[in-house]
């Protein structure tokens, strides 16, 4: 009996003089997430999303949802593209989606961050349906996996900025989502999220309640003659217009959009302090002095 256990549990030693096989990579881009799209994991994710995550979103960032009817205009899989400020973005966005779409959506997550070890990889894949993508370039492996998922009817959520905003301003969109859209002939649905930076901005760990808004735009369809870079620009402009809609109003944003005059999410190209200055005080602390003079 002992021999059997030993046989089963102890790996055989590599004979001397034989070059051992290179260790198989199981993290980062090589993390296998296919199990997370099978029924047992999906049931677990359903419980997680509809249970604790929903409660957390309800407590900290109950979103105002605008333009949800634009989702009805899309038949089949779609690539959701949103700006990215916070770890709160993904739960908030998933909770904002209609139920039938929510549980058929995979989230493109940075392989070097969410899949850097097995624990974070399992948690990410299980609870938000994350798949690893290379955020530095459009990698063949991540593009293939994404295309396969779209072909299987899964929706994909991509943050084309490549990471959370470091200073509250947005970052330029990268071309991955547009490339996928063209490759798979799948529409892109632009989304703008606002307020999540106040809930849980980069380098903070304790969430604070704040008002958030998820604005869904009209689907953008790729055309054969349009290059990926141009499509990416179109998507970025659409998200800019949605952001403008939140800052001003829908009609003003539409007028500017037709003249391509919506303010960009990336902010002005000036020095860092001026960008911070323009953005204003984003501190989440209560500004009201404790010993304020009484109002006479």
């Amino acid at each position, binding site marked *: 009996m002992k021999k059997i256990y030993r046989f089963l549990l102890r790996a055989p030693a590599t004979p001397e003089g034989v070059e051992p096989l290179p260790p198989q990579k199981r993290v980062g881009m090589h993390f296998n997430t296919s199990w997370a799209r099978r029924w047992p994991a999906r049931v677990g994710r359903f419980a997680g999303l509809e249970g604790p995550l929903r409660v957390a979103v309800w407590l900290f960032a109950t979103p105002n949802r*605008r*333009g949800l*009817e634009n989702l*009805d*205009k899309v038949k089949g899989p779609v690539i959701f593209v949103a700006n990215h400020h916070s770890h709160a973005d993904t739960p908030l966005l998933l909770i904002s989606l209609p139920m039938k779409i929510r549980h058929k959506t995979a989230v493109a997550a940075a392989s070097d961050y969410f899949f850097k070890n097995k624990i974070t990889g399992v948690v990410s894949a299980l609870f938000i349906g994350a798949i690893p993508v290379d955020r530095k370039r459009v990698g063949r492996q991540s593009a293939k996996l994404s295309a396969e998922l779209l072909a299987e009817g899964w929706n994909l959520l991509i943050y084309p900025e490549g990471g959370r905003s470091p200073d509250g301003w947005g970052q330029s969109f990268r071309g991955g989502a547009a490339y996928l859209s063209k490759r798979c002939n799948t529409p892109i649905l632009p989304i703008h999220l606002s307020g999540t930076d106040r809930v849980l901005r980069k380098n903070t760990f304790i969430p604070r309640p704040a008002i958030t808004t998820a604005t869904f735009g009209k689907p953008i369809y790729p055309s054969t003659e349009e290059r990926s870079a141009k499509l990416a620009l179109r998507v970025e402009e659409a998200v800019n217009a949605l952001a403008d*809609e939140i800052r001003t*109003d*829908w*009609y*003003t944003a*539409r*007028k500017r*959009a*037709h*003249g391509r005059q919506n303010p960009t999410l990336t902010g002005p190209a000036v020095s860092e302090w001026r960008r911070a200055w323009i953005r204003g005080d984003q501190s989440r602390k209560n500004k009201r002095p404790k010993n304020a003079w009484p109002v006479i």
Partner: protein
Amino acid sequence: MATQHRHTPRPGLVLEVDRSTPPVMFHHGEGFRLEKLPPGRSRVIYPAEPKTGIADPDNAIRQALLNPIDEDPLPSLMRPSMRLTIAFDDLSLPLPPMRRPDIRQRIIEQVLDIAAEAGVDDVHLIAALALHRRMTENELRHALGDRVYDAFAPQGALYNHDAEDSHGMVTLGYTSHDEIVRMNRRAAESDLLVYVNINLVSMDGGWKSTATGLADYQALRHHHNVAALQQSRSFMDRHRSELHHSNWRQGAVIDAHGPRIFQIETTVNNNTFGRSGPLAVLQKREWEWTFKDRVSCMAMSKSLKVTPPAIQRAIFQAWRAPYELTSVQAGAVEAVHERTTENVLAQHLVPVEGQTDVVTMGLPYICPYNVNSTMNPILVMCLGLGYFFNLYRGKPVVRPGGVAIMSHPTRPEFHPVHHPSYIDFFEQLLAETTDPAELEAKYEQQFATDEWYIHLYRNSYAYHGVHPFYMWYWGAHALQHLGRVIIVGGDTAAVRRLGFQPASTLADALEMAADVVGSQPTITHLHNPPILMTDMA
């Protein structure tokens, strides 16, 4: 074969009742009754099944705006410095209110997108509600969407029409019949007026939209009166409706002296209660009810009986109909309206032969004037004798001197905010007379010019003081035509106050009808809603 049959919407049907016919569903306010009709002399008229909706409504709307009828494409009418006004039908359409996104939202967003592309800055949106109550913020948001509301309402560029604002109204002229034509000043002085309609029934749309929706009491009284409505046979048939003739005459004046109008009209199908879901049974034919349908009907009926009226009302008023767009037309008013009416009639018309002695109607919980409100007895009369009775082309289904039997609880309940003048009309005037002509001659002016009612209309959410009169006139043609009106299951005192006879059961009502039309009367039951219009051309 059977599957294919299910996918093809069937036209309306006239069912001759025999001994094997199952009990027929009667709407009864916020409830239902199942009634056995006498075999051999009864018939039931069923509405057509819902036509298939347009698969891509946004594209259809876009095409209509770019390729209008007898009008230039909408983008070519826009320029940056213009005054653009968009008027739209109020909450009385469609019924019940439709699920989001409302057709008005779909259309107005596209119109505004074209205006935005042209750089139009001066844009106003007006709920064309004539003398109806003002729409609340929630109702406007439901009809137009949050984007449009948030863009225009805070600046005061989205508002309800105010027919009692003397500076906000303007006289455009007089018709050949000396009828004054008055219109909302902002709309009248615009370079372009875009009117967005939902044509639920054939009465809606055309010149009635602008000549009524944006008018005031002075202009409305030329067609909202007893004589005009008694001469409208029916007011659902524009070519035989004095109501519409007057509106069209006023429309000619608007055409000559008013703004350029770009009319957008839409039609929806008969999918009032959904093809599946809790109320789907209401638009099925009784002999096709499945076990699930029968259980659903029984459960609803029994549970509603023990539910307090306020909760019943809340449940039903929360229903949002899954209507689908079946057509959209844009361009010149009259050309657009002709095509729209064809599309409405294609859904609603049911050919019927011969009149009967009695017509029976199950009145539902909603009419155009109690959306998010209470169905009071005057509205019960208006719904039955105004709308349902007039849903005919050619001749009514009931013979002159016949009897109308309506089923409704007819509770003497009034919404104090929405219908203040109705309370006085019911308590004071109907106690004196129920004759529309006498009410019109003696009291209309008094109610129409009452300062308190005007104040409530302008600043609260009340229907105009004269509105209950119009509701009563709406049934004037039926009152003239019929020998007796009986309400089954209604509050006895309220029914008597209306001048009708109460009955506890349909059998009792038929017995009472026999006094007027003789024994063994022939009966037609209108299985409405979903909406049907009988065609006895």
